[in-house]
């Protein structure tokens, strides 16, 4: 469109060659004028008359010029510049309000940006795979439990699936990395050759574990390094390829490095970072069908969708169940679920993050309403100024444009400051976050965050501008000059502020109720009895040196280790186990009870009757050191060694579920592996108290405990790959960390000692996520309560100031302070009561939506809600009382004299 082009160039010329354009216009008008004069003189007017007539004809030349200038778009640029200058001047004239407004807005914008960026990074950023939306993950559900899938099931899916174009699997284990320095336990992922191709990931250096690994055995393909490991341990040396790496004593070359940012789709089975990847070769001749340790990933085939893949997987499960009936219990529900990889990764934190998003949105609304109120009351004081402008010829449009420009300035400043707030929060938040919150690494002030704050900053500017312009324009400006304020103006204006204040109170109440409920539920969590005594307890993991991995020697090492630790000063007891509560999952099994139907035989489909238990191996001292009581029978003894009759201790949960109050001591049970292979019968010698498994807020599991001396490769109980040590201390256990390290090293310097934490730390970590939610929502609610209190304070103070004359007259006529207070407080009270009531109603509705976030309490918990009502009322009362006090201080004589 050439019209646009010529308009553009013309406008630019007017902007950048302003002088020339103006001079030309002047010349043209002068020529016009003189020609008119000449013409009139030719019609026999005198020169003076002609000039006068010509001037009359042309009108005010300045007005004409303005009209000409207004033709082009560049006049708008000029106007905006003028508005900005005016706005800057006006904003600077009231530095107090401006500072407060900018700070308040910055707080809202900044925290919103931080939370949204966090949520966006965790929940919505695409995974670092090719076309990640097409990737799905398998999950086997048996009764209430969720598992990965077994190698046998995996191979079935691999062979029979038509809806998936490819499947791959991996699992993660700990292995000892031997190097020149001290040995370390690291996480090693083992993946099928198809795993990386299915994800669409290729190593950034070298090659992926090649298909020939299938033939050449476990380490034929060599090791792949994670990018971070490559940088940290090898200084990002590209010459690392081909160098040997020793894992659990097996030497193989490094064949490649994975791209930066790569991580395996994690699930409960394999959290944490994997340092090295090794090939996983399934023994296809003798597939394991009973251990569900693989995380299987599939890529949807072209044309397939999630629903179809699920239908197919139901079918596959059916086939697997019919082909190998022995592996699935008849008496519980079994499912094979296909879900998007991203859902599996973020499913657990999603509700908490959505709740935070909701909370921070309320904060933005409250801060905006608060600043809106400030602008309204300031606009009130500026009525005279605006009236003067109007009298000098400013139209409504130009007055509102100026007010809008002021909001743009305020919001602009707040956006800049808010960006700093967001950056700060984004630096702090990941530190508060629980360790298992996925994908925190890459989160920071990126383009997404900047665009976000830009957009909400602009929206805020618009809302504020419209609010202040609407209030300025609603009433006629001109009378303000003559008579000051009209009565109706005051009323309308205070109505606007009242609505804003009521809204703020309601929103703040929603936040405070949320914080109150979270606080209550967190308090409930802290009250939870974990079933043991977590204080003065140090826990650490030791990997037995190579060569100790199997047989009697590992038992010897363990005994020496325990004895060595027992000798340390300040230690009152030491025990070892394959896993301790709140650290790792110890493993689980299906069991038979002597004289009853086998675990997997038919019965009612009732998950409570699913004969399944967590399985733990412990030294005799375990119960004493951890503080788990033996409720019936006996604990383990040194005599429960290999070769002695097999014994087992069950926890209360298991005893109650399967013996219903009768004494299980003396009965026998065994582990059920396959229909043809079972563990030996074990006599139940004792019943132990329940202890929490992975988190304080989990229900108690059914649990079997075995004497570690009766465990081992040939016992079916398994052997302890690494040893978890429990040390009960008299003083602060953290003071003992170095001593313990030294003690272990004195036994064998090759032994990695790691994962050293006090039990109290583990307790805290298990509730880190609810704590983060509580801290954030709590902070938001405090800020909102403060803002709401300030707002209602402002309303009352304003009312007192506005009505000083009226009050003075009333006092002079003998009114009592009480009736005067009622006069001033009436509206504020209404705001408070309506806001509180509406807020409570909304809060209860919201709390129901987020019910799952509150542990152990009802969303309408009377204690929390009562406390909220008291707190909010108290805060509002103070905020109302302080300014209202001034009523009694009104001196009628001074007040009346002033007006």
């Amino acid at each position: 469109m050439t019209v646009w082009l010529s308009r553009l160039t013309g406008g630019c010329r007017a902007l950048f060659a302003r002088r020339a354009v103006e001079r030309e216009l002047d010349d043209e008008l002068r020529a016009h004028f003189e020609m008119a004069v000449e013409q009139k003189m030719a019609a026999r007017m005198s020169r003076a008359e002609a000039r006068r007539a010509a001037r009359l004809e042309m009108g005010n030349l300045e007005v004409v010029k303005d009209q000409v200038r207004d033709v082009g778009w560049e006049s708008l640029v000029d106007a905006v510049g003028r508005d900005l200058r005016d706005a800057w001047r006006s904003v600077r004239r009231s530095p107090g309000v401006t500072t407060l407004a900018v700070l308040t807005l910055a707080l809202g914008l900044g925290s919103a940006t931080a939370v949204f960026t966090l949520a966006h990074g965790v929940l919505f950023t695409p995974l670092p795979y090719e076309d990640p939306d097409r990737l799905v993950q398998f999950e086997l559900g048996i009764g209430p439990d969720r598992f990965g899938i077994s190698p046998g099931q995996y191979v079935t899916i691999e062979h029979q699936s038509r809806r998936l174009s490819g499947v791959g699997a991996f699992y993660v284990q700990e292995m000892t990395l031997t190097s020149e320095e001290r040995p370390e336990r690291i996480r090693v992922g083992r993946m099928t050759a198809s795993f990386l191709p299915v994800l669409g990931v290729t190593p950034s250096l070298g090659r992926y574990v090649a298909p020939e690994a299938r033939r050449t055995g476990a380490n034929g393909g060599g090791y792949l390094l994670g990018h971070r490991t490559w940088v940290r341990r090898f200084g990002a040396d590209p010459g690392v390829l081909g160098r040997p790496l020793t894992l659990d004593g097996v030497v193989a070359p490094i064949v490649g490095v994975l791209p930066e940012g790569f991580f395996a789709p994690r699930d409960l089975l394999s959290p944490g970072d994997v340092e090295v990847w090794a090939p996983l070769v399934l023994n296809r001749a003798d597939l394991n069908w009973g251990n569900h340790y693989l995380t299987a990933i599939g890529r949807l085939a072209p044309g397939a969708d999630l629903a179809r893949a699920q239908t197919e997987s139901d079918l596959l499960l059916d086939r697997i169940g019919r082909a190998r009936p022995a592996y699935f219990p008849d008496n519980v529900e079994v499912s094979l679920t296909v879900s998007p990889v991203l859902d599996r990764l973020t499913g657990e934190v999603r509700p908490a993050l959505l709740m935070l998003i909701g909370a921070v949105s309320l904060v933005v609304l409250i801060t905006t309403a608060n600043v809106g109120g400030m602008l309204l009351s300031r606009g009130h004081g500026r009525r005279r100024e605006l009236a003067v402008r109007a009298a000098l010829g400013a139209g409504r449009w130009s007055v509102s444009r100026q007010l809008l420009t002021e909001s743009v300035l305020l919001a602009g400043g707040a956006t800049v400051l808010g960006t700093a707030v967001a950056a700060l929060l984004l630096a702090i938040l990941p530190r508060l976050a629980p360790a298992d919150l996925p994908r925190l690494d890459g989160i920071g002030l990126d383009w997404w965050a900047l665009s976000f704050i830009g957009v909400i900053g602009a929206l805020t500017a618009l809302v504020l501008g419209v609010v202040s312009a609407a209030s300025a324009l609603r009433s006629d400006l001109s009378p303000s000059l003559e008579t000051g304020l009209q009565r109706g103006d005051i009323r309308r204006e205070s109505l606007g502020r009242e609505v804003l204040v009521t809204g703020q109170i309601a929103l703040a109440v929603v936040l405070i109720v949320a914080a109150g409920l979270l606080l209550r539920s967190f308090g409930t969590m802290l009250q939870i009895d974990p079933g043991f005594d977590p204080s003065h307890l140090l826990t650490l993991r030791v990997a037995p040196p190579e060569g100790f991995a199997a047989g009697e020697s590992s038992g010897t090492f363990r005994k020496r280790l325990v004895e060595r630790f027992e000798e340390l000063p300040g230690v009152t007891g030491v025990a070892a186990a394959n896993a301790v509560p709140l650290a790792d999952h110890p493993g689980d099994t299906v069991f038979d009870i002597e004289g009853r139907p086998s675990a997997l035989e038919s019965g009612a489909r009732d998950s409570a009757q699913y004969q399944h238990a967590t399985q733990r191996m412990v030294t005799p001292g375990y119960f004493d050191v951890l503080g788990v009581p033996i409720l019936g029978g006996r604990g383990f003894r040194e005599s429960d060694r290999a070769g002695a009759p097999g014994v087992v201790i069950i926890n209360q949960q298991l005893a109650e579920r399967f013996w219903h109050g009768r004494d299980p001591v003396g009965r026998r049970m065994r582990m059920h592996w396959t229909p043809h292979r079972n563990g030996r019968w074990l006599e139940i010698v004792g019943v132990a108290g329940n202890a929490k498994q992975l988190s304080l807020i989990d229900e108690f599991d059914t649990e079997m405990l075995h004497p570690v001396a009766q465990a081992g490769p040939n016992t079916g109980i398994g052997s302890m790959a690494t040893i978890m040590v429990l040390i009960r201390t008299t003083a602060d256990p953290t003071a003992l960390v170095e001593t313990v390290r030294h003690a272990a090293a004195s036994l064998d310097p090759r032994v990695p000692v790691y994962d050293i934490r006090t039990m109290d730390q583990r307790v805290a970590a298990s509730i880190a996520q609810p704590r983060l939610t509580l801290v954030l929502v709590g902070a938001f609610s405090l800020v909102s309560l403060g803002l709401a209190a300030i707002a209602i304070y402002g309303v009352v103070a304003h009312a007192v100031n506005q009505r000083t004359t009226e009050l003075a007259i009333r006092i002079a006529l003998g009114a009592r302070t009480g009736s005067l207070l009622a006069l001033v407080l009436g509206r504020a009270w209404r705001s408070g009561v309506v806001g509180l009531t509406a807020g409570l109603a909304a809060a209860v509705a919201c709390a129901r939506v987020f019910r799952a976030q509150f542990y152990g309490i009802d969303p309408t918990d009377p204690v929390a809600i009562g406390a909220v009502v008291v707190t909010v009322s108290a805060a509002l009362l103070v905020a109302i009382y302080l300014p209202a006090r001034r009523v009694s201080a009104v001196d009628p004589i001074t007040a009346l004299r002033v007006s």
Partner: protein
Amino acid sequence: MPVREKPSGVVQGTLDMLILKTLDLEPLHGYGIGLRLHQISRGVLDVNAGSLFPAFRRLERDGLITGEWRATENNRRAKYYSLTRRGRATLERETREWETQSAAIARVLRASRSEL
């Protein structure tokens, strides 16, 4: 902000067309254009500077007319406007539209009951 005056006696929007038509006859300066409109309309159309000059700026910006400083017959410097090619095309199009419309309006205004 200044208040915009209405062009005196000229239907808004038609002033541009009239200026283009005037310039179609010969290039003219601003005063001449006003005078010419006055003369041709036999004194009916009296366009003041406040309407003329914004119209010049608008038409110039849209590339319909172009200005050039020249000497007048009285040896005075003045800005002479002339039609551009696009201006001529616009004039022809608008004239056609105007004639169609005014004929239609005239028919409506003359309409009597018998035509229903």
